[in-house]
């Protein structure tokens, strides 16, 4: 088992021993399992998946939407430092869809670089949330 700690600005969201964690990094998705070599990497916005036991099927994976951070693996402890991580259960798909559409509208209306970046950030965030909500629905 590997200890998985999910640390966000809003507190520690997850801190348990698990079998496998799937993480989105700049270089693509990686899976971290017990005995992983020491690694420090940068996470991007994407979906974090947690498989608690080896016998868990794909539809039992827990998903979190995240918007980027730092990953550290050492001595069978995986610490992920992200601004925020939303559990699939906490995401309302309709709301996320609304926010996603709104962000697109903002992007079209953006006049300067700053508001454009802000809108793009919102789009990235909401698209990940939508993705996570979709994953959950599919497995139901």
């Amino acid at each position, binding site marked *: 088992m590997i200890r998985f700690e999910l*640390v966000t*600005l809003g507190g520690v969201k997850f801190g348990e021993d698990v079998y496998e964690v799937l993480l989105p990094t700049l270089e693509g998705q990686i899976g971290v399992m017990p005995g992983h070599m*020491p690694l420090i990497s940068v996470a991007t916005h994407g979906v974090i998946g947690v498989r608690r036991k080896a016998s868990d099927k794909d539809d039992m994976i827990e998903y979190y939407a995240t918007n980027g951070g730092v990953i550290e693996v050492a001595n069978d402890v995986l610490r992920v430092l992200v601004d925020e991580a939303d559990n699939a259960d906490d995401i309302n798909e309709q709301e996320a869809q609304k926010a996603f559409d709104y962000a697109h509208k903002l992007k079209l209306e953006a006049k300067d670089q700053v508001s454009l970046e802000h809108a793009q950030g919102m789009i990235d965030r909401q698209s990940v949330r939508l993705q996570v909500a979709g994953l959950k629905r599919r497995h139901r």
Partner: protein
Amino acid sequence: MANTIVLKRRIGSVKNTKQITKAMELVAASKMRRAQEFAQHGRAYREAAYSLLTRLSAITEVNDHPLFVKRNIKTRLYVVITSNRGLAGSYNSNVIRLLAKAIIEDNKSGVKSQIIAIGKQAAQFARRLEGVDLVAAYDGYGDQPTSNDVRPLLSSLSEMYADKKVDDVQILYTEFKSNIVQIAKSLSLLPARFEATENVDSLAQVTFEPSVAEVLDSVTERLLEVQLWQALLESLASEHSMRMMAMKSATDNASDLIDDLTLAFNTARQSAITQELAEITGGAEAMK
């Protein structure tokens, strides 16, 4: 009789005021509890970011990073955290006094000052200042800020520092010591400071993806973010706590005022009755 009517009306209006201040006190109290709780959550994040940076410093020269480099200070930027609304005791004035003092100091030493205001109160003050740039004014972040709120501010701060538009960034906020004690404080955000406190096991075998530099960028960003976040949340907790205290004393004052007015009202009523009685008996005497 005219006197008692006036007094009665005043008692009524003070009672109304008391109800309002009492309600505001309760609202502030519940918001304060939530903000306090929130402020504590960030601690784990900061510790994790710090420990990562400590380990990074063992293999790379952290202090060469653009956000860590110290320069001669020509322009200093203040990020001033205040509330949107007043009626919070000395919450806003404490921070603004600190800002005024710092600007006077800067003037003496020939440093240009710039301001980024968070909350309407700071923006109002900064607009009236001469010779000081108000770079941006944010409208406050509500009662539950999210990391998405601070991100644009943080990225513009880092950019300004890396582009050498500013040489020093200070956050002026209110530190939440306890429910009773809150202190306006200045925290220096940039250049980022970091001292390796302990010796750590070598990172020689650790793989960095995509590169050490990019990991360092990301960790630094997170460290700054958590500092700004912490300042924001502590200010929020302080604001609510000071508003609660201010409203509590307003409620107490209203109670005192009601007591005084009731006493005056009773005296006036009694003297009116006495006078009336005297008039009646006087009238009856005359009829005999």
